[in-house]
């Protein structure tokens, strides 16, 4: 049987092309007519052994389709127009394939990290469970100083706490590496603050540290402007306001011109035209000394920003708790 099918295939191939309507009709009668070769083969299918029936039937169908399509395409050419007879509705949707997505905080963080890597910074990390020394003391937070009230702290025991900022990683980096140092330190931090639409008890920061000879505030401002323009757009402006962090001196808060209203004022920037995005400053000499680096030889700058707030600004998220609810319908928007 299979041999016969093969022969008919060859016979069809031999009779092509069909160059006139007479040729088409003759072809139809020869192969697909009631007494045609293909029809005859179908009649024989009954006598094929059961276990082969499926296979042979399939081959026969293919044969019939081949003969019919030869007729169809020749007739179409004859009529001077194309004829589409779909075997299936091609507008049916494809087999569903769904990619997962990154959490919006990862999206924003990755983008920032890539900018700083491009600017020559390495990525460093440190533990979330941290000693008082790294989280406070080495960063020039004196014992019994009100600066400690700036960050409501969760304690594990007397000396151990959940880091309140990523700055302790600065000290860990300086302990393990001689200057020049150029690192960014992303990570999760904890503050014992009441949960509301605007604040959560944990969030993410990106810290930056650069230590070298002859580093000044000019270098700091340069890198911050470069970052702001990469991240928020080439027209972005920055504004520095003096502030206080125990581990930098002088210290500043940095505002960037609002990327939504371009400084004209809108709801997101509370009509100021500016968005507060990070804190920065020159590394305090006491911090360098704590890390056994001579502040008379080296100087440096540090900066830190809250990822969660920046992600909220970027995506227009008005309740920080949404970031932690992990509702799939929310997550799949990013």
């Amino acid at each position, binding site marked *: 049987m299979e041999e016969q099918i093969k022969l008919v295939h060859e016979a069809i191939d031999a009779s092509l092309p069909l160059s006139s309507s007479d040729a088409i009709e003759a072809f139809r009668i020869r192969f697909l007519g009631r007494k045609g070769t293909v029809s005859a083969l179908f009649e024989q299918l009954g006598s094929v052994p059961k276990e082969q029936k499926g296979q042979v039937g399939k081959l026969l169908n293919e044969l019939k389709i081949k003969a019919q399509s030869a007729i169809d395409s020749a007739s179409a050419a004859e009529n001077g127009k194309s004829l589409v007879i779909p075997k299936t509705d091609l507008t049916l949707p494809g087999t569903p394939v769904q990619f997962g997505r990154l959490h919006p905080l990862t999206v924003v963080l990755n983008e920032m990290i890539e900018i700083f890597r491009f600017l020559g910074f390495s990525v460093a990390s440190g533990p979330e*469970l941290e000693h008082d020394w790294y989280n406070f003391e080495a960063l020039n937070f004196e014992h019994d100083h009100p600066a400690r009230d700036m960050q409501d702290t*969760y304690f594990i025991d007397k000396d151990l706490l959940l880091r309140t900022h990523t700055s302790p990683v600065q000290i860990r980096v300086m302990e393990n590496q001689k200057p020049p140092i150029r690192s960014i330190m992303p990570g999760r931090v904890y503050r014992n603050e009441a949960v509301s639409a605007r604040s959560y008890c944990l969030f993410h920061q990106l810290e930056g540290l650069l230590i070298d000879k002859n580093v000044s505030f000019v270098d700091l401002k340069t890198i911050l402007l470069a970052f702001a323009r990469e991240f928020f757009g080439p027209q972005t402006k920055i504004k520095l306001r003096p502030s206080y962090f125990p581990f930098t001196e002088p210290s500043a808060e940095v505002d960037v011109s609002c990327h939504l209203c371009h400084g004209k004022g809108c709801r997101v920037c509370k009509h100021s035209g500016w968005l507060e995005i990070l804190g920065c400053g020159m590394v305090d000499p006491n911090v360098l000394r704590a890390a056994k680096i001579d502040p008379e030889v080296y100087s440096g700058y540090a900066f830190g920003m809250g990822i969660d707030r920046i992600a909220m600004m970027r995506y227009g998220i008005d309740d920080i708790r949404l970031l932690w609810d992990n509702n799939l319908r929310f997550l799949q928007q990013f």
Partner: protein
Amino acid sequence: MKIIYSWLKEFVDFDWTAEELANKLTMTGLEVEGIERTGAGFKGVVVGKVVSREKHPNADKLSVCMVDLGDGHPVQIVCGAPNVAAGQTVPVATVGAVLGGDFVIKKAAIRGQESNGMICSKSELGLEEGKSDGIWILEDSLIAGLDFATILNLKEDYVLEVAITANRGDALSHLGVARDVAALAGKMVRIPDLSIDPKYLSQSESSEKIKIEIESPEACSTYVGWYLEGLEARQSPEWMQTRLKQMGLRPRNILVDVTNYVMMELGQPLHAFDYDRLKTKTIKVKTFSGLSFTTLDSKSRQLPENALMICDGEEPVAIAGIMGGENSEVVDSTSKVLLESAWFNPSSVRKTAKKLSLSTDSSYRFERGIDHNLQTIAARRATKLIVELGGGKASFKPVEAVAKPTPVLELTLRFAQVKRILGIEIPKDTIHQILDSLGFKMVGENSTEMMVKVPSHRPDVTREIDLIEELIRIYGFHHVPEAETVAVSYTPEQKSYYSEENNLRYLLNGAGFQEILCNSMIPKADAELVTSEIVPILNPQSEDMGIMRPALAPGMLAIAVKNQNHGLADLKFFELGHCFLKKASKRYSKITGYDETIRLGFLLSGNFMPVSWNHESKAVSLFDLKGYLNAVVGAFQFADPVTLAVKESSYYEDYLTLNVKNQEIGYLGKISKSVQNFYGLKQPVFIAEFYLDEIRSLKPKVARYQELSKFLPVEKDMAFWVSKTVAADEMLLAIKSVNAEFIRNVIIFDVFEAKQNPDQEKSVAFRMTLQNPEKTFTDDEIEGIMNAITQTLDSKFKARLRGA
């Protein structure tokens, strides 16, 4: 800290509006977070006389009045108040007047009657809470047309909410903020009037009435006492009460109010003792331990070790710098007062206040460091105000006990250092001007440096770098330019897992896993289901966030329930995060006694593939998750093979660990019914976690190119009957071990139970890919390999070739 615009002007001249002032303060480091306008909440309201009142023709409850506004041409005003009547004197918001900040009165027609203004009630003028009963009827003696705000003496003013950073204790007063304003405006500050009219001074010295002994000179360097008598605890004048209210303080009586007023004015906390209630007339400043003491808020407080106390002889009468005692506080009958003005050590006050969980305006200022030269000045200022405003007489001289003089600090400022840190040069005369206006006295200068004396009100300035910060804070960061180039000196890329972790994330995204981020602080019950080695937080915000997560599973399950309850049942997500156990730390842990590790967790539940017209959906199984893990393990590229061990777990009903060279690198499992019920999950959930620190510690495979065989591979299928106790992966290993060179790959493509004895036997079908790198196999060679496989499986597992 609230700063009142008009009060600030008493100390320094400037002509900026409140807005301008706020911007300038913010740009010097005193961030203004808000401006509240106070005084009259209205503009354009005048006194009017109701000449006539008629009923409104179209409205029963309205009246049409003619009101004289002082120009002799009464205007028509429609009024809805029931108490309006002809002959009354009333406040009238004229056309163009503004009420409540932004409500502008316009000429209008009300039910067809023209109305040229509004007769006001107290609440409409913002002078009464809630709604008033009708309009405000004034004294007839008031003349029509007078500005009503002027009559009420309501002057427009502004209260600035200033965020004072923890280093700027000096700015916690109007005088302190005025110093920064002076530096900005190039002016000098004015110290308030300290001269006391001699008619209020007695002939006696305070030292005749009181002795002061400081027993802890470290904790109290200076204690000034002033004795006043013949006093009355009467009300303070209206202007002082207004200011105190604007500062958020409740006026009480002149004696207490003045201490608060001077604190807000100069920054020196003061305390007034009722002199007659002091048991002996010797004030002792000394430390106590384990004392119980009732403060003036009538609360009994257990004092911590070494709390500094003020005592009348031996009995404590105040917690130094924090709060006075009930036993000596000023009461209505008080006529003699000992006024205290002292310097207490910041950390001593802070320690005691912290342990008492008590923060007062006084302790807040002492903690941040007050001017150690301010005590006598503040005492004199307060004494002057008390006697001049409240009557009585003061001793002509205070008692001043100085236990430990505070040395004046001299600092050297190197001009080169200014340039080195800031990257710019500040002109020398600008440096002089800034430091001078901030109170720093120059004591020497040469071409490279200058020496200055730090004023006593700036205890935070102790180093050269602090001076540099002062300079740039006033000079302005806008003077610092950006460089043209980002200078980079080469540092080798430090080892980090950033890229590796991101690669994993993208890999999993591609496989359909959504990334989630869960809270690391979880409920105790959830944590204890996982382990007993939990890490509790000493001061959790709530019980729901009491424990650091020991694994990713609890957080992921909680998120699974939330999504399930939102109707999202097909779940496929991962998380990468830190987990915490209280146990001997591993080599990569940085904290002794704790094990903080980074894990990668997976969760699968619901349907494996979304429903579609061209295939059927199927519920996920453990093997789906296992398949993904296998793929991820492949990505890790271990040099050594990963083995699986079936284990018991109360958390999981089917549970397997993944191991490399006896090191556990992760696990996977189907959560047990009890865990499923604990979380309220309606369907089975499969979870896996990888321990990334363990994985990073393992030897990676180094990829080496192997020549590809030119000869076609041959596929052969073989099925065996074997006991159900035989593990499939052992059969796979056995087959590969027959000829590792030629058997390129083996897969299991069919498994079913024997019909005859389903409890004992199963059929396992293998498809082998055979390939010889050297030549094409002969049939005999293939036969030989297959025979060897049959023999091996027979001898190892008593497996019988099916159909043989």
